[in-house]
């Protein structure tokens, strides 16, 4: 929300009556670029000053590093069934081995990459679809708005997880790529609604009127004038979609709708549950992948909350009030 005072600010001071003296396209385009850089710097400052954001960024960076270089951390092949079965934790097997004789630590480490790929893939894909549909609906208006809005609403109310289960059951063992595609197609609608609302509120702003009067094409107006003003909403949409992708994919893999031979946190839970890990004293097989899902999800959620607090000061925790509670009206 903080980025909203970009080109819009100049438009407001200009006023509609002075539209005849609107600056040439190049100047306004450059203005958009400066706004982008400024908002990026503002975001960086916000991340370091907000504790939730700091924790979220640190967690996310750790997971990205693990996903990029799993071989540096775990030295075993995560799929090889070469060790004695059901070993407890030890120096050579930090988390013990599975009921199939695989090194559990290696599975957790190598399992990071597919989960992160799904999170980033769905996060980007669903946000781009949401942006295109939401902004197009708001900008084009009329029948286009009606049709795109109807599509969004219909997808929004059809229960997503049961639909994913039905699609997954026909697919028989969805790989990481298929999971990304399917979850993306199902989950963009919620954020599309938010982005449409935001774009609609911009529609009558002066800087857009100015662009129209200059004779800019719709594509230029949408990509250069509208989208840069929604940066913080887009970041929030990305984080929301990424979080849901982690939870959806882990759930689908847990019930056996992923590819069972992939090494991933969700499939680990599937095999652990199928081998009655609790009853055979292998609680770690269920606890550790679950904690990893929680930590990655927490990274996305914390960042999202932090951005929400930065954009909406009313939701910030009130710390100063705790000391002088007596002065508050009751």
């Amino acid at each position: 929300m903080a980025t909203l005072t970009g080109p819009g600010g100049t438009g407001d001071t200009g006023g509609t009556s002075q539209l005849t003296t609107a600056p040439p396209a190049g100047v306004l385009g450059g203005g958009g670029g400066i706004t982008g850089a400024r908002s990026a710097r503002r975001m960086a400052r916000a991340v370091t000053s907000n504790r939730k954001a700091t924790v979220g960024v640190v967690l996310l960076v750790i997971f990205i590093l693990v996903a990029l270089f799993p071989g540096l951390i775990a030295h075993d092949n995560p799929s090889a069934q070469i060790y004695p079965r059901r070993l407890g934790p030890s120096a050579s097997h930090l988390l013990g081995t599975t009921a199939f004789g695989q090194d559990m630590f290696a599975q957790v480490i190598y399992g990071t990459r597919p989960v992160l790929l799904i999170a980033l893939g769905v996060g980007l894909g669903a946000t781009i679809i949401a942006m295109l549909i939401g902004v197009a609906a708001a900008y084009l208006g009329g029948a286009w708005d009606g049709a795109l809005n109807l599509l969004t609403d219909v997808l929004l109310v059809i229960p997503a997880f049961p639909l994913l289960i039905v699609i997954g059951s026909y697919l028989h063992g969805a790989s990481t790529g298929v999971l990304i595609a399917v979850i993306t197609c199902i989950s963009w609608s919620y954020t599309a609604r938010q982005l449409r609302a935001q774009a609609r509120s911009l529609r009558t702003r002066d800087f857009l009127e100015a662009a129209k009067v200059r004779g800019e094409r719709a594509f230029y107006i949408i990509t250069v004038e509208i989208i840069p003003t929604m940066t913080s909403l887009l970041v929030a949409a990305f984080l929301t979609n990424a979080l849901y992708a982690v939870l959806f994919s882990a759930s689908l893999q847990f019930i056996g709708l992923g590819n069972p031979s992939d090494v991933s946190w969700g499939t680990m839970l599937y095999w652990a549950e199928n081998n009655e890990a609790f009853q055979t004293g292998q609680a770690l097989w269920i606890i550790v992948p679950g904690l990893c899902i929680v930590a990655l999800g927490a990274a996305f959620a914390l960042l999202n909350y932090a951005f929400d607090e930065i954009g909406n000061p009313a939701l910030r925790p009130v710390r100063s009030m705790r000391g002088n509670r007596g002065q508050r009206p009751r």
Partner: protein
Amino acid sequence: MSFVSRRLGFFALTLWVALTLNFLLPRMMPGNPALAVLGKFKGGVSPQALKALDAEFGIGGHQSLFSQYVTYLGDTATGKFGVSLTTQPGNSVGRIVLDAIPWTLGLVGITTVLAFILGTSIGIIGAWRRGGRLDSVMPPIFVIMTVIPYFWIGLVLILVFGVKLHWLPYFFSYNYTLTPGLNGAFISNVAEHAILPAFTLLITTIGTWILTMRNTMITTLAEDYVRMARAKGLSGHRIMLDYAARNAILPNLTGFAMSLGFVVGGAILIEEVFNYQGVGYLLLQAVNNDDYPLMQALFLLITVAVLVAILISDIATAVLDPRTRGTR
């Protein structure tokens, strides 16, 4: 009036989309999944089931796609969902689903109402004592709760209270050795089996109620009429409940109407983890057994439940909040 009729139109359209998805999905998939199922039987299919499969997936190949579609829509409209192929072979899908519904309504329904009442109350108190202890621990806990997969919370509770402490049962909805009946022993056994899944559901859903109520209430507390009530010297209790909470509860109320729709299909993984024989557990059984007629009927049931609830919640908003009536 036009508002209601527009919502009814949307309801019908979404229902049609769900029906069509149900029809088209198996036909869009690489390799007809129904053929694969048929292959498993090797001729052991009853003529009746074969006919049902033909109507539903067109495996016979002697019908055009369009006439298959018409047959499918007609069958669904008249409640002919066919017979189960593998889960309970030969039994009618309608019968199997009807047997599962009461278990889900009992477990998830009661828990949803409880979560709403508890969550809303905590939200009211949290917003009223803003910055207090309750208000400062709530949001971080809520952040954590939203990112934990529901089924994993269930698994951890099973580990702690079932496997380690042996306090509570965690398998099925009652003890196999008991004969179901309306007697004290059976009912208390069912209640005992419901504690862990219900608790899992409660702690995973309560956060939304708390946070929505808290955030709306914080906005309401800043309104002039609340300040006026304070200036009049009304008791804090009265301001909190009659002035602030009463006006802030609308989003939670409509959310509650909507969440009732998710009762039917909202606890799929929790039912699975606890082997609780409700609608969600049945859906996953149908999925694991490639029992497509049963799976399609359940997906339709879950979707219709959600749609009806959304319709009710829309109408409730229009009735309860006069501001929404005139605008559009």
